[in-house]
Every structure is written in C-alpha cells, then in structure tokens.
C-alpha cells in the first residue's frame, strides 16, 4: 500500500470516528445506572427549594436536557459555591399536589444571598 493511500485511509477512519461520536447520547453509562440512581434519589426528595419564583408565585421548574448531570449554586455575603446532582426528571405520571397554597413557600429575600432563593430549580426533561 502506498503512502498516500494509507494516508487517505487514515483520514477517512478519523473522519468516520469523529462523526460517529455525537450520536451516542449517553455514552459511558450503558446500563443507565445513573438514571436509576437519580430516580431513586428523586423519590424522597423534593425537586424544589423553599422559595417561590416571584413573578409566578410558585417554585418554578426550569427544564434542562436529560443529559445534564450537575447544577451549581452560588451564594454571596458568606461566599459558597457548591455542585449538586440533578436528580429530578419530568415524567408521565400526574402527581399530587398540584400547586402549593399561599404561605407554603418563602419569597425571595430583599437582599438575596443565594441562587436557590430565586425560586427557579432545575428539572431534567424526559428521555422520550
């Protein structure tokens, strides 16, 4: 095999392997173990924090891709940066209760000091 032929072959193989990458949506977890963990962790934990979103009056879910894994919170005054896994995911089952009554959630403080105080919380979109 000549040098040029092998060079072209290498380029073609490289192109094919590069092109094949993005179609693997959840590579690295073929048994979907983290999906199961996330599901199990979501069951006894609320998807929301203790605050409501001011323009809506309820804690508000922000849809993120189902491939998203972590969220970051930021607080200031007493500074803090934390990473949290995103356990919750939207599903088909209709759940109770729907909306919370007045007074169940706190308003964003006059001087917010944490990103969770704005009442918007990540929930992953469904797979299907």
């Amino acid at each position, binding site marked *: 095999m000549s040098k040029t032929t092998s060079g072209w072959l290498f380029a073609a193989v490289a192109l094919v392997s590069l092109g094949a990458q*993005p179609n693997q949506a959840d590579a690295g977890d073929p048994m979907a173990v983290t999906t199961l963990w996330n599901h199990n962790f979501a069951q006894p*934990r609320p998807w929301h924090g203790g605050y409501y979103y001011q323009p809506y009056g*309820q804690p508000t*879910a922000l*849809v993120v*891709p189902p491939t998203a894994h972590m969220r970051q919170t930021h607080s200031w005054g007493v500074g803090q940066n934390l990473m949290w896994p995103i356990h919750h995911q*939207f599903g088909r089952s209709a*759940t109770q209760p729907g909306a919370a009554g007045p007074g169940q959630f706190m308003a964003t403080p006059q001087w917010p000091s944490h990103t969770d105080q704005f009442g918007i919380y990540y*929930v992953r*979109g469904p797979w299907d």
Partner: protein
Amino acid sequence: MHWQLRGPHQLGPQRLASRKTLLSFAPALAATVVACHAATVLASGGETIVSSQVISDTVVDSGTTTIGDGTFVGDGVVVDGGMMGGRTYGQPDLFYNYYTQGMANQANAQMYLAPVPVPPNVGHTFYTYQPFYPHELLYWHKDRYHNFYDNGRGLNRTRINYGGNPIHQAASNIYWNYLRLPR
C-alpha cells in the same frame, strides 16, 4: 441543532398482523386482526389469548359472522371482545403533559407550558405532534414514534433524528478540547 424526519411509513393491517408483538387470529376472515391485551380464555378452543379486539378491514358478508364464543364481526365494524373495558386504538391523546415526580414535593410543576403556565382566561396552544415537541431538541438522539390510526387498522411509524452536522460538531470539539487557549 436540526432534525430529520423520515416517514411516515404506513403499515397496513396485513403487515400489522404479521408483526410478532401482535397475535394474529383469523379463523374465517382473511383480514381479521386480533390485537391483544388482558388474559382471557376462549370458550370454544380453550386457547388462552391475551385480550382481544376484533378488527375487520374488509367488508365481509352483510350478515354476522360468529367467531368462537359469539363475538361477531360485521361490516368493517370494530367489535370489542367484551374483555378490555373500552380500550381504543384509534384515538390516542392529542397531548399529554409531563410532571415532576417524587413523593416529597410540596408543589408539582408541569412541563408545558414552559416556563410557567399562563392564566386560564388567556388560552394557549399545545403540541399535538410528538416528534416536534421542543424538549426532544435538548439532546442528540434518534427516536421512533408509532401511532395507531383508523381504530387500529393502520400503524403510522415515524423515524426522526435529532442532531446536528457531525462535521461541524467534530470541528467544534477539536477547537474546544485542543486548540482553545484556556483563559
């Protein structure tokens, strides 16, 4: 990101009947399809089938034809076998929402409308075509959608690829992973 839609492919009742997932049961009628759901024993043959809906695609003789335990097929009429409590193939939900899950929520959110619902007196539209749901565009994947229509006589299959240009993505990966200065 863009999407490519293939199909819809129409599967007629004959092809439906040949699918392994559906048991075909055609004692007297060529195009009679029995699609199955809850367990029942037929009185005549004593064979167990998994629930049934008798669907005739062809116009049989105008009289009634008796099948097994007395359920009958008329002129292309769907006859509930009497065991399934009104399961309908032809009328799937136009739209069904998604909700937050779990046992510990003090409030739950629905996914559409996003980010928040509008007041009821405003009114809203909703998506009736599943392949075009916006949340499908959140990550690269492929999907297949199946829909019964015409009371289960046909199955509509749609394949869609939610993705982008792989060459563009490869170039972007090379830039962000190797060429970009970390600053």
